[in-house]
């Protein structure tokens, strides 16, 4: 639905757009439109995925021509109105049409089909884009069994990370007897460095609701819950609005679209516990308990929320479902590999040139994702590794970059598909420190119920910390591996069982870095501050005092035009001096 003969301006207002100053741009454009007295349509939209170019502003001419602008600040926003809209001269330097084509054009956007295109706060726009047609189709011409069959045939697997076939989960939930059944949407996206679910909810909340409706119809549930991360306030606001609008339009509640199907939806805000992404812990949290996992079986499909059959699926999984029902399983299954069908959304971050959100068909190689869509490593640095699947995943080295992105191939490398976080690291990232970072995270988030996770992660963290400080004993590497295998085997839930993955994969692929820390007390990436010394090369220093001014602890002494000296006692190794020096006189060892 475009502007019916009017020009349309769209401003990307997801968390990433807003963080980059999107609201200020939106305000500036609003004022400029008023001042220039122009009749056009200004609206908000979600994230197109090119987060590194936010705030993004799209101008769509009445004839449908798209002009996409990147990094639009207030001034540029005003100029778009005065020069482009009013003067008819697009701002050539700021157009990102070509880049948009090279990034977005190579993608297959199914879960993200509406993100960055429609206004997420408008039910009308969602419907105009084919929204709720799948529910209509299912309710009119499909039995619940047929819906399950279609999803099963599409090959859709859980996009939260574990990759369990969605249709099978629904079938189990349907087959288990019970008057009351539940659908739960897991929107507790806790992996640090992953923001697929946030972006989908912020950019297309109705897609998630529609997916849940279809799930409810399929399994015979009349109540759904969305367990959303409290750290995502905008996502929650947009969901609340979408639920209200869907209710008012008769798409939620009793007798949906005149059928006998009833479905109600409630949002439950998480309270900040990573372990609640684990389904049994999530259930405990929904019931008002501490979010501690329990042993499976029984699986939630048998005894879930309030001990009733429950299907728990991830945000991205739900967002795929309406498309599958509408376009058919075959069309979805045409993408991907034999065992991993369809597409997957990835959040690209770290030392990546084009950080953001992408959706690609399964089976594409890591190299194509990182160096193709992602634009390669920032600042011409050398690629070192990519972390997939957050704290539960692993780190894949350059030699394995041609691994296809599918559940099974990734598992074979020691990493996992995970929820879709992809963090790229370059030569300045220390792998021992990365392992320490993830263990620190998992250790803080361990619920403490089982010994393997509670104590095992703690002991592993202590060893890794000693390594990054150059204080570990040679035999500790072996001990670290031994504990890692024990935790993997013995932990109660997914959090503990996968916690050793970052450690084991970095040892496997980057053993030399561990050895440099242990035997030489040296950090090859020059990242572990405890192992670094900053000195000034007297030959190269010309005494400009630039570093003296930048030092936060007054550790550098030296008069103008005389060689400066760093007081090692006072130095906190922040690296400011090396940044400040224009003559490369500050040496790091």
């Amino acid at each position, binding site marked *: 639905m475009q502007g019916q003969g009017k020009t349309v301006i769209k401003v990307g207002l997801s968390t990433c757009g807003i963080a980059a100053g999107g609201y200020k741009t939106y305000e500036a454009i609003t004022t400029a439109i008023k001042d220039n007295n122009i009749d056009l349509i200004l609206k908000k939209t979600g994230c197109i995925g090119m987060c590194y170019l936010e705030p993004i502003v799209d101008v769509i001419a009445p004839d449908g021509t798209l002009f996409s602008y990147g990094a639009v600040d207030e001034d540029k926003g005003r100029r778009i109105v005065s020069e482009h809209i009013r003067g008819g001269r697009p701002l050539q330097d700021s157009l990102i049409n070509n880049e948009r084509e090279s990034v977005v054009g190579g993608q297959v956007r199914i879960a993200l089909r509406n993100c960055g295109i429609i206004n997420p706060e408008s039910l009308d726009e969602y419907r105009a884009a084919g929204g709720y047609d799948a529910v209509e189709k299912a309710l009119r011409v499909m039995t619940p069994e047929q819906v399950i069959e279609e999803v099963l045939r599409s090959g859709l697997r859980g996009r939260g990370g574990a990759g369990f076939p969605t249709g099978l989960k629904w079938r189990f939930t349907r087959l288990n007897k019970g008057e009351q059944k539940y659908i739960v949407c897991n929107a507790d996206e806790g992996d640090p*460095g992953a923001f697929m679910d946030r972006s989908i909810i912020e950019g297309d909340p109705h897609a998630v609701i529609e997916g849940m409706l279809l799930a409810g119809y399929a399994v015979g549930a009349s109540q759904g819950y969305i367990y959303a991360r409290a750290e995502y306030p905008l996502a929650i606001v947009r969901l609340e609005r979408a639920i209200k609008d869907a209710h008012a339009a008769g798409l939620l509640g009793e007798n949906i679209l005149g059928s006998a199907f009833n479905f109600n939806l409630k949002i439950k805000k998480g*309270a900040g516990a990573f372990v609640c992404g684990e389904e049994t812990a999530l259930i405990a949290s929904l019931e*008002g308990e*501490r979010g501690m996992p329990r042993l499976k079986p029984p699986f939630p499909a048998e005894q879930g929320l309030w001990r009733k059959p429950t299907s728990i699926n991830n945000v991205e999984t739900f967002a795929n479902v309406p498309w599958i029902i509408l376009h058919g399983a075959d069309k979805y299954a045409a993408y991907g590999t034999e065992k991993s069908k369809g597409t997957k959304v990835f959040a690209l971050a770290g030392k990546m040139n084009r950080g953001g959100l992408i959706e690609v068909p399964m089976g594409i190689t890591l190299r194509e994702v990182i160096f193709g869509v992602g634009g390669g490593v920032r600042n011409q640095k050398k690629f070192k590794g990519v972390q997939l699947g957050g704290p539960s995943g692993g780190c894949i080295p350059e030699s394995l970059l041609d691994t296809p992105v599918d559940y099974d191939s990734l598992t074979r490398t020691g990493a996992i598909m995970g929820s879709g*976080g992809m963090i790229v690291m370059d030569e300045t990232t220390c792998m021992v420190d990365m392992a320490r970072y993830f263990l620190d995270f998992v250790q803080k988030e361990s619920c403490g119920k089982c010994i393997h996770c509670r104590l095992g992660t703690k002991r592993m963290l202590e060893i890794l910390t000693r390594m990054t400080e150059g204080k570990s004993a040679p035999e500790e590497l072996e001990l670290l591996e031994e504990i890692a295998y024990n935790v993997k085997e013995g932990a109660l839930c997914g959090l503990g069982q996968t916690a050793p993955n970052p450690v084991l994969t970095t040892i496997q692929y980057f053993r030399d870095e561990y050895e440099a820390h242990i035997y030489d007390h040296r950090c090859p990436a020059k990242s572990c501050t405890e192992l670094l010394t900053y000195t000034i090369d007297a030959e190269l220093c010309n005494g400009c005092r630039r570093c003296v001014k930048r030092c936060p602890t007054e550790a550098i002494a030296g008069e103008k035009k005389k060689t400066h000296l760093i007081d090692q006692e006072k130095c906190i190794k922040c*690296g400011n001096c090396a940044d400040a020096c224009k003559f490369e006189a500050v040496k790091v060892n």
Partner: protein
Amino acid sequence: MTASAKMLETGVIPREQIDEIIENYKGDPSAIIPILQDVQDQIGYVPRDGIAYLAEKLEVSPAKIYGIVTFYAQFRLQPMGKYIIMLCEGTACHVNGAKLISGAITDELKIRGGETTPDGLFTLEKVACIGCCSLSPVMVISGETYAKLTPETTRKIIKEYQNKDITAAVQN
């Protein structure tokens, strides 16, 4: 006066306010997490006396409520500063130098994660991931996101908040 300020002054928990929150959830003990979230939203934190009062009202043990409060990272047992600095320690921020930002904040304000400055102006909270990884490293102060930080810009931003507060005090 805010509920929080009033409570700090009088030391008495606003019972009617808590009653109202419980009423919104029809006294359902399984709604304990949203009830605590509302209490914290309105009062600014979960006061210890409030836990005892909630336990009595909901007919559960104070230990259970305390267990929940301490399990979830969101709940706080102490009042917060006027400005809450949420520093992201997600993976992307970590590889892009969040440690240096944390160092700059600690150096500038002499507080670490979870602590509040003695003047009650700032609380530093370290969070796992805010979800704007491509703008890392980031921090959020009172809802405003600051992206692509360096130690210098971080110090500057903090000073701006300090100055803002001084200006506000003078104007009042």
